[in-house]
Each structure stands twice: as structure tokens, then as C-alpha cells.
């Protein structure tokens, strides 16, 4: 292997690959990156066995070859190499690589390439193509509701569901739920239910662009692995096995109590009142009555209390409902319109929350379960 590449490109590919290298692992080979040079390209791959990333960049390839290099050392070096000075990589023999930059010459021992996990082979045709901005928005709107504990593994990912050509994306942790529906496009693809791990989507989101004019992300399915192919990046992830809960059945259809509030004042009132909520419980109360809601919180030690009324539009019964303020804040943060609409059944049922004005092409619905108050 013998190549020359600009420092910026070299640093960029190593840095992005390094995001997938596990910080703790019992398998030393996973602490390496797989570097392959051929056909005028440098490709760097890394994996934690759940997720594999390959990033390509153009390079002057004098001699094709493969090298498996310890990731941390390579990353630390890449960050500190001189800017605007080409980087040269050359295999010294089968057990080391020499990296040269300006006057600097750095030798790193390498691993046997065959020990590195096999790189994925993509099927000839993708199942689905999604524009970068749409996929980025879907991830941004759904990732916050994914479960953070491992008690229910199916909830630790986001469901991408295709049914009769309609794409629905859903995530939930049991307390909150978000359903994003593409109401603009009819996809001519077979039905599928993919539960994609949260981490894969986090990594993918960083690789996506808001530019509408770049080619769409191609999504391939092969042997229970999903592959996202971007221009220079291929991200492969396992899918979470299991059946996602029947989310449609928990979405209330006719909640009679309707609250419409301005998002920004509501959110800032929640933030102020939540200062007085218990650190562990994170609970706040909301008293609902016509024309006004009153937010309040009191810590369990009784050392402080916060109360704030907020003018709103409200039609329905008077009652008090408790929420985990952290969940409520996250939900309100997802609302893009000026006004938010809450449809409530009572103090212990799921509330349906939507932006009053939906963004064109999508329909977002969120659910929030209240707290069982004492």
C-alpha cells in the first residue's frame, strides 16, 4: 500500500471512523481501523460489531493495499498533523505502516487484516431512497423518545414502518411516544418493519446534510443488516429483533379536553417551575381550567415551591395532571409551530400532543403519559 492524501481529508475520514470504534471492548481487533486503498480512493472502516462504518475519500494511490491500524494512535496522530501538508501512508512490511507528513515520520504496528470483521456486501439495488434532509428530520424528530434502558430491547430503537406505500416512523420509551408520518409521498416498496438502534441513527444523523440537491441516501437490506449508503459513507447496522408494541392501539382518538398554548412561554414556565421539582422524581403539576393553567412544583423535602399561571385556550373539565417535566420539555422542544395542542382524557390517561400547524409533507403526533400523583 502506498498513497498520498491531503491532511484535511485524512483527518476527516479518520475522525468520522473513530466515532464507531468502541472505547471498551474485550476484542483488541475492534480497537483498529481497516484502511484500504484502491482505484484512487482511501477507504477507512471501523466497527463495534453492532455498527460498521466505511468512509471513502479520493487519494493518489500509487499502490493498492490494505492495512489494519490501531485506531486511537492513528486518530491522535491525524488530529495533530501539519495542515496543508500531504500525508503519505506506506506499508513497511506486513506488520507496520509508515505515515509521513512534512519532516515527520511515524511508524505504527499493524494487525493481520484477516482478523478484522468482514466488510458488508451490498445488494445490487436499494430498497428505499430518502433525501438527506427528510431522513435527518425524521431522526431529529424521533430520537428523543427512544428508551434509554435495556429492559424492553425493542424500545431501544426507532421503528421505520412501511405499510401500503406509507412511511411511518415511531419511537417510544413507554412514557412518551412520537409518530412521524410522511403524508406526501407514496413509496412503491414492499412493506417492512425495521427497528433501527438509536446509536446507528445518532451516527447517521451526523453524516447527513440539509442540502436537498445531493443524491438521496440509499438504504439496503441484507441478512438482518441495514445499510445506509451516502455519497462517501456507508453505515451498516444490525436491526433490533422483536415486535414493536402496537402503538396505534394506545393513541387515544377522542380526548375531550383541549388545551392550546404558545410553545415558548409554556416551555419557559415549565423550566422555571421545574427548578422546584424533586431531583429524582422530576414531577410538576398542572391545574387546568378555562383560560388558564397553573404550573406548580414542590420538592419532597418541602424546602421550596414554584407556581406560575399561564394564559392558554382551554376547553374541558377542570382537573390536575402531573408530568415528568423533563419529558414535557422534550416534547415541547419538538414543536416547530408557535402553538401546541394538547388533547387530554384526564389525570391518568395518555395526552395527544401536536403542533397546531404541521410542516408540509409530514404529520407529527406525540403522546405523553402523566405521572401517577400521590
Amino acid at each position: 500500500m502506498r498513497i498520498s492524501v491531503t491532511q484535511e481529508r485524512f483527518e476527516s475520514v479518520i475522525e468520522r471512523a473513530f466515532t464507531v470504534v468502541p472505547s471498551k471492548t474485550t476484542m483488541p481487533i475492534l480497537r483498529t481501523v481497516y484502511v484500504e486503498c484502491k482505484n484512487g480512493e482511501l477507504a477507512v472502516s471501523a466497527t463495534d460489531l453492532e455498527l460498521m462504518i466505511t468512509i471513502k475519500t479520493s487519494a493518489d494511490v500509487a499502490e493498492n493495499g490494505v492495512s489494519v491500524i490501531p485506531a486511537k494512535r492513528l486518530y491522535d496522530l491525524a488530529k495533530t498533523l501539519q495542515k496543508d501538508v500531504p500525508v503519505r501512508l506506506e506499508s513497511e512490511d506486513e506488520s507496520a505502516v509508515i505515515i509521513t507528513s512534512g519532516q515527520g515520520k511515524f511508524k505504527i504496528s499493524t494487525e493481520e487484516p484477516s482478523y478484522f470483521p468482514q466488510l458488508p456486501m451490498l445488494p445490487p439495488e436499494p430498497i428505499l431512497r430518502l433525501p438527506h434532509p427528510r431522513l435527518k428530520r425524521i431522526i431529529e424528530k424521533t430520537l428523543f423518545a427512544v428508551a434509554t434502558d435495556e429492559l424492553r430491547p425493542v424500545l431501544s430503537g426507532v421503528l421505520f414502518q412501511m405499510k401500503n406505500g406509507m412511511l411511518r416512523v415511531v419511537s417510544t420509551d413507554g412514557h412518551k411516544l412520537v409518530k412521524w408520518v410522511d403524508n406526501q409521498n407514496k413509496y412503491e416498496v414492499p412493506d417492512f418493519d425495521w427497528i433501527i438502534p438509536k446509536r446507528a441513527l445518532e451516527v447517521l444523523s451526523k453524516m447527513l446534510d440539509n442540502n436537498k440537491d445531493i443524491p438521496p441516501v440509499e438504504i439496503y437490506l441484507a441478512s438482518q443488516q441495514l445499510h445506509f449508503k451516502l455519497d462517501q459513507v456507508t453505515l451498516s447496522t444490525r436491526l433490533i429483533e422483536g415486535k414493536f408494541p402496537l402503538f396505534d392501539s394506545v393513541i387515544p382518538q377522542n380526548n375531550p379536553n383541549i388545551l392550546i398554548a404558545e410553545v415558548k412561554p409554556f416551555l419557559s414556565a415549565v423550566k422555571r417551575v421545574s427548578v422546584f421539582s424533586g431531583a429524582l422524581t422530576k414531577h410538576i403539576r398542572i391545574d387546568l381550567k378555562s383560560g388558564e393553567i397553573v404550573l406548580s412544583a414542590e420538592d419532597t423535602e418541602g424546602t421550596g415551591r414554584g407556581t406560575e399561571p399561564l394564559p392558554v385556550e382551554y376547553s374541558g373539565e377542570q382537573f390536575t395532571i402531573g408530568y415528568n417535566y423533563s419529558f414535557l420539555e422534550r416534547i415541547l422542544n419538538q414543536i416547530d409551530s408557535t402553538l401546541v395542542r394538547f388533547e387530554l382524557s384526564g389525570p391518568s390517561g395518555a395526552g395527544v400532543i401536536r403542533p397546531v400547524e404541521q410542516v408540509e409533507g409530514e404529520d407529527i403526533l406525540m403522546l405523553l403519559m402523566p405521572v401517577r400523583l400521590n
Partner: protein
Amino acid sequence: MSQKMILHLDADSFYVAAERLAHPHLQHVPLAVLSSLDAFVIARSYELKPLGIKVGTPKWEAQSIAPNALFIPADFSRYGKVSRQMFQVVRDLAPLVEEYSIDEAFADLSGLDTYYQKSASELCQLIKDRIQQQVGVTVSVGLASTKTLAKLASEYRKPNGLFVVTEQNLHAFLADRAVHEIWGIGDKRGPKLKEKGVETALDFYQLPLETVMRWMGKHGVDLWLELHGHCISPVTETYAPPKSVSRTANFELKSARPEVVFAALSHHTAKVVAILVEDGLFTRHLSIFLRRKDFTFDVASCKLPYPTQNYQVIVAAVRNLFEQCFQRGVVYRGSGIVAAIDPNGAFDLDLFVEYEREQKVANLTQAITQLNRKYGKGTMKYLCTMHHPKPKVRKDEQRLALPIVKAQ
């Protein structure tokens, strides 16, 4: 001194009194009640106290001290019934009653003198008399402006005593009580105070507040203020939920059989779930332990998918834990389960839990509890406890080792 009037009631040798209530012929027999598995003395009659038999004295030692005494196993369900009757008498007269233990309670009598047209001390005497007449046990009562003073006073004239702390007798009363007898000082802090020359409750009372703060911090200051008549800890009915609910017991016969060990664990689980349902508590963390013959433990714990009091969910989790920690070939002597309770009692509801069904299961648990309470333990039980041996029914003639004479 404020106008609060707080009563502290303490039943005299409660377990012994409850036994004598059921068995009047034991009225003058020196009597000690033993712990589970009959290992230790947990209560003794007044005849045995001067002999040096204390709570915690091993049975063998107590028997050697008092060979003529009668040692009987405890019957907690009986004591519970007597306790409920006793507190009901207080509740009939006072609206605010705080049950402190099975045989102790506080009641706030403030303002009741006007209502009943009786002085607070006459009310105390009325409560004492009614308990003796209606329940059949004697209690000692202290009346004062704070809980700390009232508790100190109830111990002053035991047994069957009544002492009212007034501004006039306060100093003499405190001078007659050792400092360690103050509730909250006890045998741990008492000796340290004595080293500093604080021998009596009056010595403590007369310390400068700054000194108390320096020596004992906020806890000491609260006690000092209570002794000075400032009600820091009011009588409260507020139910403080426990941090955990647990049940543990040794087997009557050691066993290496998984079905027997699991049945015991299921039996404990059923009892824990019954308490959760009865007290409106929910658990999210479970731990179990199996005690080996050599007294070492096998333990396992887990987090439940949501806070619950559902027997089916909890026993399924216990089954998983049991399979994790049960070791084949090991002989076990006991087992236990601990269900941790969220101290706040409130929790985030879950979208995918059928709370109506949870409520139905809770209702079923409650019905089983009530059936067993009405018709006797084990009237209805869960199938998975079937290998758990029925507790030996210690008929009273066996417990007391006395012949039975039936009237015709």
C-alpha cells in the same frame, strides 16, 4: 410553654399481656415470649425483668435464669388484633392518632378538653380505663406539650401509670430521668453525654443551645427544643411509605429441592404483594436471597419493566431471579425477598401497561388477603406455593404445654 397536649401511650409488656388476655390462667405465671424459631426472648413479664432477662436474651440462658418461667412462641397475628383494638379506643376519642409501633401511639388531645368538657389528664385516664375495660390490657400514658416529653412521661410510672408533665413539675421530672432515657438519645449517645457530665434529662435541658448544636447538631437541637416545650415533631397521621417491603424466614426443614425452595420464595412473594396492594405501594426493584446451610447467601436482583404491585409480574420476575441464583446440590435453610419502594410514591405511567388489568389483579390479591384474614391463613393461596409446608398450627395446648380441660 405552648398549649399543645400530646398523649403517648405504651402498652405494658404488650406481648405478654396479649397472651394473658387469651389465657387468663397465666395471669400470675412468669412468662416470656420467644422470637421465630424460638431462639430469643422478645418480651417478658414484669416478674422476669428484675432477674436480668432482657429482650434478646437467648432462650437457653433465660431458662437457666428462670427455670420455672413459661417460654412460649410468639403469635403475631394475635398481637396485631389486640393492637388494632387498643388503637381504635384512642381513635374513638381523638381525631389525630399516630401509631408508632404495635404497642405505642401518640395522640393530639389539643382542644379536646373543651369538646369533651374534661381536662386533658381526665381524657388520658378515660382512654386508659377504656382500654383496660374494652381490650383487657393495661397501658402507661404520658401527657405533655411535645412528643419527646410525652414519651419520657409514659415510661415514668410504668406499669399502668399516668404522668402529666406540667410547667410546675417539669424540672423535678427531668431531674429524675437519666439522659439516655430521652427518646432519640438512647444507649448510643447517652454514654457520650455522661462523659461530658450530662447525667440527667434536666442536665441536658439546662445545656446552652449552642453547646447542644456543637455536640449533637440539628438532631440534638430538635430534642432540646422539644424538652423546652417547642413542638418540633407534631403528631401526624401522614403515612410515610417504607423504603422497601421484605419477607424472609428460615425453613422448618432444610432443603436442596428447587420446588421446595421456590415455593417458600413464592410464599414470601405473596405476602409482600399483599402488603404492596394493601398499602397502595408499587415496586420497581426486586432482590431475592437464598440462605445456604452454611449461612452464606446466593443473591440476585432485577429492575422490573414498570412500577407494579401485580403478583403475576412480580412472581415471574422472582422465578427468573431464582433460576439465576439457585445452585443445584446446595442445601438451603431459608429465603427472602425485598421489594424496593419509590420513596416518593409517584411515578411515570406507562403507555403499554394495561392499568385496568393491573387493578383487577390487585383486587384479586386484596380479596385473597381478606379471605385469609377472615377464614384463616392458607384458606386461599397461589398454586406455586403448594410445596411450601403449611405452617405448623401450634395449638394453644402445644404452645403452652398445658393440658386442656373442656367444659361440658
